[in-house]
């Protein structure tokens, strides 16, 4: 196997697939990338057994001898990154050694056989969702922060992706707060469909998206999601589990609704957070007539108090929250005014923009 390629197309390709490689590996071959070389193109594959990224390169490629092998991902990426711009790089693989040369640089890397590289099974999609890159990015960015991390309730370690013919929705929750984002767009599906994309898949897919109007098509099978974006093919397994009945935990809010300028609230919370308990992050909200007071204190007995004028004339009450959960949610409201809806000190708070309600956030209180 022998070929020559320019730095730029190779680096672009390597950096788009390398993210999936876990730093600590149980299986040595998973630290490597699969290189499959035909006379016309080079295909580079990376996987962590859950998510697979495949990138094809045809630009600036001269193939002398086709073949396949696997090469250490991280080292190759770092070498490539540090070569001069427009460098020509030659790869020559013999036995279990790969020789990489460029100008006066020469590297000998160890390889592992291509046969040992695990490929995800062929997927046979039964549903196709049409969406733009920008819309998918908005849906993901508005909700993915609320996904659980290594929760025993494994179905929470991912993002619920729900489609119907005229609507797409994403939902994420870690059991303490919940994020929902809706988009009323024709999706091209004929029936309702619900899948849970694992955390890693969501993060890798987010890296491939941008704000453009370019249409993409998500292919879903019963256990995989696949999408081709530019020269990259992304495939992820799906989480096989039942997402909790999230509609049930969205509170029905009566009169205790307050509207607050987003920036004012965000800044006040950020300042109060400085003196909250580093671990629990609790802040106390006290709502009295036309006034919201936010208080925080830490184990060193330092205290913060913020007051914001609001329009409120219900019975006064107190409730505590993890300030990080509030800031995460408020940061995702795409409007200038946020609306906070409360029930009582033991019930969740509903956060959304004051005009559209595409994004809704539910935050459970803390007992302080």
């Amino acid at each position, binding site marked *: 196997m022998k070929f020559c390629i320019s730095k730029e197309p190779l680096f672009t390709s390597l950096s788009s697939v390398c993210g999936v490689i876990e730093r600590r590996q149980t299986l040595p071959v998973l630290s490597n990338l699969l290189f499959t070389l035909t006379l016309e193109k080079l295909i580079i594959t990376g996987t962590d057994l859950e998510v697979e990224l495949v990138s094809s390169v045809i630009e600036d490629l001269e193939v002398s001898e086709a073949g396949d092998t696997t090469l250490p991902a991280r080292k190759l990426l770092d070498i490539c990154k540090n070569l001069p711009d427009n460098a020509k790089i030659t790869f020559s693989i013999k036995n279990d050694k790969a020789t990489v040369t460029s100008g006066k640089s020469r590297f000998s890397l160890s390889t592992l056989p291509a046969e040992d590289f695990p490929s995800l099974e062929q997927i046979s999609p039964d549903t196709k969702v049409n969406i733009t890159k920008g819309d998918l990015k908005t849906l993901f960015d508005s909700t993915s922060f609320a996904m659980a991390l290594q929760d025993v309730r494994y179905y929470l370690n991912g993002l619920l992706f729900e489609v119907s013919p005229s609507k797409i929705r994403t939902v994420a*929750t870690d*059991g*303490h*707060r*919940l994020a929902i984002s809706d988009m009323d767009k024709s999706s091209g599906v004929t029936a309702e469909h619900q899948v849970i994309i694992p955390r890693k898949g969501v993060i890798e897919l987010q890296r491939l998206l941008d704000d453009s109007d370019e249409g993409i098509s998500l292919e879903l099978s019963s256990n995989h999601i696949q999408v081709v974006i530019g020269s990259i093919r992304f495939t992820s397994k799906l989480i096989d589990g039942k997402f*909790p009945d999230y509609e049930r*935990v969205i509170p029905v809010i009566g009169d205790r609704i307050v509207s607050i300028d987003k920036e004012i609230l965000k800044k006040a919370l950020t300042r109060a957070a400085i003196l909250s*308990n*580093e*671990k*629990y992050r*609790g802040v106390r909200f006290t709502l009295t007539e036309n006034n919201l007071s936010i208080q925080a204190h830490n*184990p060193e007995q330092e205290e913060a108090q913020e007051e914001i004028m609001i329009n409120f004339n219900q019975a006064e009450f107190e409730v*505590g929250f*993890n300030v990080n959960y509030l800031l995460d949610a408020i940061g995702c409201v795409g409007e200038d005014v946020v609306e906070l809806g409360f029930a009582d000190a*033991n019930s*969740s708070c509903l956060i959304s923009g004051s005009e559209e309600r595409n994004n809704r956030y*539910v935050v*459970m*209180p*803390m*007992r*302080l």
Partner: protein
Amino acid sequence: MSAKQRKIIHCDCDCFFAAVEIRDNPVLADKPVAVGGTPEKRGVISTCNYIARKYGVHSAMASATAMKLCPKLIILRGDMNKYRVVSQQIIAIYREYTNIIEPLSLDEAFLDVSNSTNCKGSATLMAQEIREKIKQKTGITASAGIAPNKFLAKIASDWNKPDGQFVVLPEEIDDFVAELPVKKLFGVGKVTAEKMTNMGIETCADLQQISNFDLVKKFGTFGDRLYKLCRGIDNREVKTERKRKSLSVENTFETDLQTIEECEEKLEQVYQKLLTRAGRIEELPEIKTLFVKIKFYDFKNTTIECPGHEPDYDVFSELLEKAVKRESKAIRLIGIGVRFKEDGSGEHQMELFE
């Protein structure tokens, strides 16, 4: 808290590790037996049977010293996994009586049986049954103390050891503590006991003569606790879940370390051990302090600590150097560890899905 009289049992196996070994190898029954490290490797006795105790052997003694006192002493390596299995069997027996169990070690626990209906509510009979069941199921003997609080129950379990039990009824507390030597009080070690002897205090009755104010002046916050203990008062609850307060590891070296350089060299392996242990804990609490403990060849200890949020090698190395410089003596043991922040904030996040 309700004013209802509590019933606490302190249950403690008799020379646990040694007893398990003798059970599995009955030939040892009439010989002096200990579990611990070998004298060649500068080991320490962790438990020994009563025959060995007659020679003056006791736990935490250097194995070499023990061998001098009792040349026929059989020192066994010990098998923690085996002891753990026995310990689980014993805890299962406790569970038949109450769910409020506070294990202190593999073989020692407090049981709150105040609301238990077994044996018509008689804690004395429950303790009797528990000890019989332990003997039947595991083949080793245990002793128990029964009292209205943890402090008295713990002292009582030592009263008729081995294979016995002792009850302190609520109306007997005053007489019981009056006679009690102060060195039996938890927290009163050699130094405090000496201080007290100098003050003419031998028993709790003597201690009761001193005002709370004077005790605090003399012993600091411990004085307040002493004031209560010498009157048999102890309101601590039996805690089913014990919060981990610190994490530490230590190595005893085959030959004493003479120089700082040698100590530095060994620090690396102790440090790795700490990281491995820390890695095994699922949710590591927030770290408050780092500390280094060293033991000199003459068993004198010194501990030095400083604030810190993560186990930092360089910090341990600095602390070690300071500790070593405190005495110009050869070093037998190096221990390092972290203490955790206490979780007293009372903040609690509520769940969306119960």
